[in-house]
């Protein structure tokens, strides 16, 4: 239990998927203008990333490896993730219209979130077990959501500051993202557990 707790903590802080591994930058920049939408994006990504990590593990260990098809990994993972996202979208739409209202528009976007594919591929590379894969997917998603929401908070504040015209909007956001990554370097090498 203790080991799993520290696994999640280290994927959230020390190996943060956005600020340390630089995956999932498109939604990080794209959906961080407002805190409210970043929260929706974070929840949807957490949902999908955890499921995708689990599904990718099953695909890898029950299909690709036994059949010697490891070279099809990227293709197969993309297919499964895309199908999974569509499936999740359909289910949510039918079962919980309220949740669909919150997550709906973000779900198709996640298909192209490289963090989802990246985490699945990293898990396959490390030959992690099922629980470990799923938890590292969950941890990566938590880390993604955390920095996305925090970044949105800083950007909301920047929107009302007197940033020089040439740097307003995207440039200062990229600089802020860089400083966030610099701050997260402080966690580097932290031996947890």
């Amino acid at each position, binding site marked *: 239990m203790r080991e799993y707790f520290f696994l999640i903590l280290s994927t959230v802080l020390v190996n943060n998927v956005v600020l340390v591994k630089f995956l999932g930058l498109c939604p990080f920049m794209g959906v961080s203008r407002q805190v409210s939408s970043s929260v929706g994006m974070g929840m949807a990504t957490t949902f999908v990333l955890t499921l995708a990590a689990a599904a990718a593990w099953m695909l890898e260990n029950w299909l690709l490896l036994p059949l010697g098809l490891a070279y099809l990994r990227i293709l197969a993972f993309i297919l499964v993730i895309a199908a999974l996202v569509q499936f999740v979208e359909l289910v949510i739409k039918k079962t919980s219209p309220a949740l669909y209202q919150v997550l709906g528009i973000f779900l198709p976007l996640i298909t192209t979130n490289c963090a989802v594919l990246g985490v699945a591929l990293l898990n396959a590379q490390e030959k992690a077990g099922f629980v470990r894969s799923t938890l590292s997917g969950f941890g990566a998603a938590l880390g993604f959501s955390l920095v996305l929401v*925090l970044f949105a908070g800083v950007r909301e504040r920047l929107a009302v500051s*007197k940033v020089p015209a040439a740097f307003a909007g995207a440039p*200062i956001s990229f600089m802020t993202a860089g*400083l966030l990554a*610099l*701050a997260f370097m402080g*966690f580097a090498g*932290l031996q947890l557990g």
Partner: protein
Amino acid sequence: MMTSPFVAQPMPLNRLMYRVIGALLPGMAVATWAFGIGVLVQVALAVAVALATEAWCLNLRRYPVRPYLADGSAVLTACLLALSIPPLAPWWLVVLGTFIAVGFVKHLFGGLGQNPFNPAMIGFAALIVSFPAQMSRWAAPLALAPADLDAVAQIGLIFTGHLSSGAGFDAVASATPLDAIRTGLLQRIPLADILGTPKFGALGGAAQQWIALGYLLGGLFLWQQRVIQWRLPVVFLGSVFLTATLFYWANPAHYASPLLHLFAGGTMLGAFFIVTDPVTSPTTPLGQIIFAGLAGVLAYLIRVLGNFPDGVAFSVIIMNIVVPFLDQYTQPAVFGRKKGGRA
């Protein structure tokens, strides 16, 4: 005799800034006594670069240069950065760091009062990430220095990188107390033996503890002058102390005493001059307690378990990210209303 109305005058910004700079003087003086003239050279370099960068940015942004330059905020940033880097570091280090702090972290983010991150600490973090070798080369305090290091030799070392005899920095280098503990433990030297070396005093580093006391004195002056409130520094120091106590209590053979962690590294400077920065810390009482408390825990964890020699700078800029949320979600109820603004 004064006449009514007796309206309290808020302290003008420049007087406030100069009071903070003044409060740095005891620490700066002790640091100069301990490490030599190099400290003042670094401060002078940083102040010059900060003023030049500030003037250039104000000019580019079409702000009146003179009044803004006189507010003292750039000088303060420069002093804080210069006091946190090694006194004999090469001159371009502090120049680059100050330029990043004032130019990038302050002015590109909107200038005075608008920057979400602490400029001096970002400058420090950028330097230690980019130039870890130069940033961890501390000289021994003069009292413990192996080679004769007069003022000329120190200035030569800063600007040319070697002593007049041709010897490099290694002739005067010495690990800081925190580094000595870290490397000593890696070599499996018992903690008691490490702490027994002349590098250490009763509280922290033999020389560093007096510098920390200098900052403590300056901080108390700021508190007495009502420039800072007690909440941020006390919670920060308390949090470092409690976290260190927890580790010390779990394994006193491996973790140094909580007192050492208060008086070593940047804890005192951070508590009274960095964490209390009014621009980059939360404004609500509860927000301040959360901010300083978490910063203290992170500072200890990064210092003891992380890759870097000290954790204060990183912990502060990590907590800077959270400040907009703390400000928003810890607002106290307006008098006469329930929380959330309802009557």
